[in-house]
Structure formats: C-alpha cells, structure tokens
C-alpha cells in the first residue's frame, strides 16, 4: 500500500493522510448499529416488522415481565457470520453475551444484552475509493446486541410515551479504529459499509426507518501531536447529516482550541434544523455499566463447519465483483464500483452484457443516463421501466448504425416513458432510423453543396466552422436521419 493511503502507519508516524483543516488533522472513528433483517427479535420470537401499532410487537420477554428469559435467534448469529466473512474478520469460535446495566425507560430490563470482552466478530477491514485514492479502514470488532425501544415526546405534556416494539431487534454494532482522516472519507466508509450489509442481505439498509445508524467519534490535533479529546456524535441516520454534522463538529472543535478552550469529552447530538451539534445532558454514572456475562445465556459456539457452510452460500462481494469487471470488461475502477453499488444494479449490467451489449457502452448507459433518471425519480434499478434486454438491443442498434446517438436518446426516452419495450418498433414508429443509404445521402450532400458556395469557399479558406455549418445543413436536410460520420466522410471527399 502506498504511504499516503496507509492511514494506520502514517498515523503512527504522526503524519496526516487527509486534508488538513486550518492546519489541524482530523481523526474519525465510527460505531455503526445495523439492524439485522431477521423476522423475529434477537432474544424473543416477536416480530421485527417496522411500523406496527405501539407495543403490539413487544412480547413478554421484550417487556421484561417477571420470569421472562432470553432465547437466541439463529438468524441473527448467521448474519453476524456473514458480516465477518464479508469483511475478512475472525469469527470467534466462542463468544459471550454480557449485560450492560443502566436505567432508561426504553430499556425494559434495566440492562441491555450485548457482548463485551469476547465479541462474535473480531478485526476485519472495509476498503473503498475516495476519489482516486484507495482507502482501507480497519475494524476493531462487531458484536451482537439488542436494540432498545423508543420514546415519543409529542402529544404528551410533561410526559413521554414508551413504545417497546423496537426493543429486542437484533443489532450488529460495528466498531472501527480511528482510521478516517476527513469527513469525505468517513461518509465514503459509511456508504461502503451500508452497501456491504445490504449486498449480503443482513440488513435492509433503510436509514429513515433506523436500520443503519452511525455514531461518529471526532477529534482534531496538530500533526504530530497526541490524539485530541474526542466527542461522539450519536445517531446519524443519513449520509447528508453525517457530512453536515462532522463538518460542523470539526469546525467547532478547532474554534474552541483556537480560542484557548480545551475539548471536554462529550456525547453530542446533531440538530438537522440548525446544522449544529450540541452536547447531551450528561447521564450520571454513564460510565459504570457493570458489565458481566449474562448468566441466562451460555457461551455462543460457532463451529468451523457452520462458517464454511455460510461461506459457501455467500454471494460474490461487491469489491471482488468490481475487480472482475475491471479485468474481464476493461472497465475503469470508478465505473466498476458504480456498477457494483447493489446486487440489483450489477445483475442488470450482467443481463445487458449477456444480451449482447458491449460492456463499456452498457456501463456508460447505466452509470449515466439510467443512474440520472433513477436518482431524479428516487427509484431503484428494480423499478426501471427499461429492462436490461431492451437496453442491450438499443445499444446494438447504435453500434450497427441503425440509429445515431441522438436518436437513441429519443428512443430511450420513449421506452422509459412507457411506450413499449420493443426497441425496433419504437425506432420505426418515430421514424428515427438513421439514413444509411449512401446513394440518397450523396444526393443530399450534393444538393447542399450546390446551395452553399459561400461555406465551401470559407472552408477552403481555412475556416473549420464553415465545415460544421455544411454538416448541419446536411443533417437538417435529412431531418436528422443522416449518419453524421458518413456525412463527414462524404463532405470531406467531395471538398477534397
């Protein structure tokens, strides 16, 4: 790995590997809580479906009614194994569940069942491109734990309403080393992790519904100095908020330091309305969670056999697939990464190529025209009105000269807007067939030349613009159907 991208070693040598902000180095680490896509909860068999009426999906175990006990969900463990395999981590053959003790209304037992000393997943990395740079963020660990319920404050004067439907939803808490050196890198990491967990099917990635929440630990320091005091920004559930919050926090910390104030460790919340981070009310004794192994849960054993079975059923991972696209189809790293944003997108590309589309052209269409439309309409590739096969057909028609690039865009428009999926029919119906008949074209060229002596003279005098004007005339005379390349060739041969 080149020096500039080896964040860890550079960090050890006190050299920054990200852009300095006002002369300060930025150090960021992330803790991400990914809700696992199991049907039932981690320690009970109540449903995890989003959006149910309050407390209709909180069974006796979730409510911590007297006498209730936890029973582990196999699907949650399997998803942890998948994550570990996807990130190249070590999967612990034995891991232990521990109680994290604190009082809060959304925590029914007065403790959260989590993992402390021995987590199920240890180590691993997440790699991604930040512009041209290849970055690798190291993971410390990922562990299984249960989500808490929700407090609702509107509609109640002086009171809060507690909904425990979410209590017990399985989470993987994914913790990185403080390897990130800029807001952009942090957001890129989060996006890559998001892509991975959705790609391997362990999390639905729905950030608005709280399926993927990030806490950012941010500190700043002058290069070469010891690490600064960090503040933790909690519960960032959109990439935009992540970027705004971290940017604000960095500027705020630098301002504090420049003004001569020390940074105090704090947990902060981001306010999207003001764009600012502010410290939460400190919870007394927040630090003493009195962790101890949960006596209701014996140690979790994961056999090598199980890991191998899961490994065998894992899909090709996005990074590996991107590399394969680069090798097999000669795509750029950037394009390959774009195409492997989701399983559905990659599948679409594969189908188009299988249907005969030139990979580079298919890539251009998908990452360009199609991506633009998907973003604008806020839909996924699964909802794209134009299927991979018609796209491939259209690309073929460009390649074989049936339509020009311009005309192709019109055809695509028509297909996208519901005018059928039959490319040839649409071309026919709109009369967009390129004129490939050289004879007819020669006739038009001659007619144009006959009427445009002035342009001919100017061209011969060295004015290239005059040539373009002639091309334009021919295109106009052919109602746009002429093949521009042929027009060029013909004019040049006529004019010498």
């Amino acid at each position, binding site marked *: 790995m080149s020096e500039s991208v080896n964040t860890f070693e550079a960090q050890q040598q006190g050299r920054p590997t990200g852009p300095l902000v006002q002369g300060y180095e930025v150090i960021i680490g992330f803790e991400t809580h990914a809700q696992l896509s*199991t*049907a*039932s909860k981690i320690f*009970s*068999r*109540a*449903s995890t479906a989003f959006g*149910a*009426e*309050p*407390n*209709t*999906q*909180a*069974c*006796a*175990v979730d*409510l911590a*009614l007297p006498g209730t006990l936890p*029973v*582990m*969900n*196999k*699907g*949650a*463990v399997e998803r942890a194994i998948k994550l570990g395999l996807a990130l190249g981590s070590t999967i612990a053959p*034995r891991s232990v*569940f521990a109680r994290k003790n604190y*009082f*809060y*209304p*959304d925590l029914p037992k007065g403790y959260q069942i989590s993992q402390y000393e021995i987590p199920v997943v240890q180590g691993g990395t997440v790699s991604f491109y930040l512009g041209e740079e290849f970055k690798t963020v190291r993971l410390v660990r990922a562990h299984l734990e249960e989500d808490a319920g929700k*407090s*609702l*404050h509107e509609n*109640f004067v*002086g*009171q*809060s*309403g*507690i*909904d*425990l439907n979410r209590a017990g939803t399985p989470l993987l808490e994914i913790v990185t080393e403080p390897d990130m050196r800029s807001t952009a890198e942090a957001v890129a990491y989060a996006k890559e992790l998001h892509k991975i967990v959705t790609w391997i099917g362990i999390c639905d990635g729905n950030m608005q519904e709280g399926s993927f929440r990030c806490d950012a630990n941010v500190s700043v320091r002058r290069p070469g100095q010891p690490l600064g005091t960090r503040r933790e920004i909690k519960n960032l559930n959109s990439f935009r908020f992540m970027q705004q919050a971290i940017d604000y926090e960095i500027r705020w910390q630098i301002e504090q330091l420049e003004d001569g104030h020390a940074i105090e460790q704090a947990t902060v*919340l981001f306010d999207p309305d003001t764009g600012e981070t502010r410290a*939460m*009310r400190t919870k*007394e*004794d927040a630090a*003493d969670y*009195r962790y101890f*192994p949960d*006596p209701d*849960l*014996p*140690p*979790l*054993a994961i056999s090598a056999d199980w890991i191998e079975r899961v490994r065998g059923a894992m899909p090709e991972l996005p990074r590996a697939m991107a590399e394969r696209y680069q090798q097999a189809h000669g795509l750029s790293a950037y394009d390959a990464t774009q195409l492997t944003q989701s399983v559905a997108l990659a599948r679409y590309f594969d189908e188009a190529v299988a249907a005969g589309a030139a990979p580079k052209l298919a890539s251009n269409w998908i990452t360009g025209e199609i991506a633009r439309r998907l973003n604008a309409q806020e839909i996924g590739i699964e909802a794209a009105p134009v299927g991979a096969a018609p796209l491939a057909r259209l690309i073929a028609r460009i390649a074989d000269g049936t339509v020009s690039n311009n005309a192709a865009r019109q055809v695509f428009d028509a297909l996208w807007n519901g005018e059928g999926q039959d490319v040839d029919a649409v071309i026919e119906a709109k009369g967009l067939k390129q004129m490939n008949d050289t004879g007819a074209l020669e006739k038009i060229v001659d007619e144009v030349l006959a009427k445009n002596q002035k342009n001919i003279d100017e061209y011969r005098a060295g004015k290239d613009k005059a040539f373009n004007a002639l091309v334009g005339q021919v295109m106009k005379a052919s109602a746009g159907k002429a093949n521009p390349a042929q027009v060029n060739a013909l004019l040049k041969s006529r004019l010498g």
Partner: protein
Amino acid sequence: MSLSSSDIERIASLARLDLSAGESERMLTQINGFFGLVERMRAVDTAGIEPLAHPVAAVQDVTLRLAEDRVTEPDNREANQKSAPAVEAGLFLVPKVIE
C-alpha cells in the same frame, strides 16, 4: 475491605435507591459486616482456575441453544399491559425523558 458512606451514596445512586440518612448508615454497618466474611474468599489462590457460570459446565460443555428465526409471538398487548401503572394509546407513559 471497608466501605465508606460515599461508597454507599455512589452505589445507591447506581442502583436507583433513595436511601434515607438512617437507612444509609444502617446499610453501611450491615454491608461492612458482610464484607468481613469476604476477605478469606479474596485470599484464595485462584491462579489458572476458570470462572464457573452455568454450574453444570463443571462436568460437561454447555453452549447456547439457537432458535429458528420465526415469529411465534402474536400481539398480546392488552394482557401484557394489564398491570401497567400508566398507559395511553398503547404507550407506556413516564415522566418526560430529556436527552
């Protein structure tokens, strides 16, 4: 090992117990009486001994049983909330939670 009254205060706070002054004093004496019993235990040389959690693990391997990921608990809200101190619109009401 002797506890002090500030220890009692700290622990009572962690445990969310509102002890009166008299209670705290009594608690201090009684708990220190108990910890008198504990010193011999602390002195035992346990080097190389693994802690024992589930007692049957003394003679056989006890590991976590895994349940199939299936929803088998239906909505039982009414029965579950029968003994709730304060409920409105299906939500448990508490004094306002300030973050």
